[in-house]
């Protein structure tokens, strides 16, 4: 089985988070679970990685956080900002371009 190179995927953890938050505000564990589910368990993000992405995105003003107590438990929710939506779209475009470039060098008959 091919192992995932962390370098490539690391550049896109922010994109994954923003994709989820684009729908609705969410909290840490829910986001973690969603990523796992969406990728069909192919990618599992660690709590620490997730947290560092949150604080990075928050600092850059791409997401904001608020505390919610309605579930009877204190939870920190994150919400995407306009700035974040813009960043998400830019990352999508970047990926499409990246994919196009790398694809030029992938030959199906050589990988096995």
């Amino acid at each position, binding site marked *: 089985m091919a192992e*995932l190179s*962390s370098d490539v995927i690391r550049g896109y953890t922010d994109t994954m988070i923003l994709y989820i938050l684009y729908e609705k505000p969410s909290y840490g*564990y829910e986001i*973690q679970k969603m990523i796992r589910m969406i990728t069909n*368990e192919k990618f599992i993000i*660690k709590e620490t990685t997730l*947290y560092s992405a949150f604080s990075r995105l928050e600092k850059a003003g791409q997401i904001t956080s608020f505390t919610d107590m309605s579930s009877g438990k204190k939870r*920190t929710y994150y919400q995407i900002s306009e700035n974040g939506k813009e960043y998400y779209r830019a990352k999508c475009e970047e990926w499409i371009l990246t994919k196009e470039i790398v694809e030029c060098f992938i030959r199906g008959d050589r990988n096995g």
Partner: protein
Amino acid sequence: MDKIRQHIEELFSCFEQKEGVRKAKEQLLEMSEDKYQDFIDQGCSEQEAGQKVIEEFGTLEELEEILGEKAKKPVRKEKPVYPEEVMTELNGELKAVDVNVSRANIRIVRGNEDSYEISDNDEKNPVTVRYHQKTGKLEIRQTTNSFFRFFTKTGMNSIPTVVVQVNGPLEKLEIENSSGDVSVDSVEMEFANLDVSAGAVSVQYSKANTMEIDASCGSVRLEKVVAKEVNVDCSAGQVSISNSMITDLSVDSSAGNVVLDRVHGEIIEVDTSAGKVKLNDVDGKKMDVDCSAGDVQIHGVRFEELNVDNSMGKVEIEADCSYEETRIMADVSMGCVTVDGHRYGDEFAKRNGTKELRVDCGIGDVAVTFLQ
């Protein structure tokens, strides 16, 4: 849950309690609590759930990375007990090796003394070794790895390698490995069972009475092996056997090519679902080749009885005997039978001879030639 909190508090106690650190701790606690609850909801016991959350929680090094700060004091760490990169000589004779690991490379080699060595051991999921002097059995273990460690940072660590040096013959070699390569080099053994889920299996210059090889995905390579009985079961991956003497050989491959090159035996059975079969310079009394989809190429084969059954694909047989001494029955549903250059349509039968060749082909041409 208390254990989790304690674990996280302990890790964070190594950092100066600044605002950012406090916030990170709160957040990570929150996520871990949710995760714990989720495990409980899935039916885990409290202890199991706690253990899982702690196991999957990052390391101190990862915390340093996300907090951008060095830890003040090294966190208490009970060093797991395992030898690191030193040859450990056994205080007794080695008779059996029993390996059950989740992620490690295993090498069994001939050496001047019975000993073992572990390198690049995984700190989170270490390989441990126990030697039972009474029975002469060496037990190599590693706890089951959680699946997603493959994809997380810790999973990217180099894979442990265990080398066992064997001086005399082994009574039993049992290896069960979920991921990692297994190699056996210049070892004599009575019975060997190699079960590898993901990784390559290679056996060379070795002798065995019975050898069972089960590889789910990964190649199997046997070279210069002498054995009474060898069974190879490979789900996806190439099987190649060369320069070997195996009295009773059976190869079963679901998807992947099978290549036998200079193999001498009595009973040889090759069964493949999807993939080519190539036999070169093979010697056997009774040989069966069964191929569902893929070409069958047999060059320089000596036999008393050879059966080839192919559903889809060409069959090419170059027999190292004469046309006169061979009984031939070739049957093709769609395609043409050619014997020694003469085309015979979809069926050919020759009813006398001391050797027997049967070919049954669904779709594809059959070509038989005789070398003598």
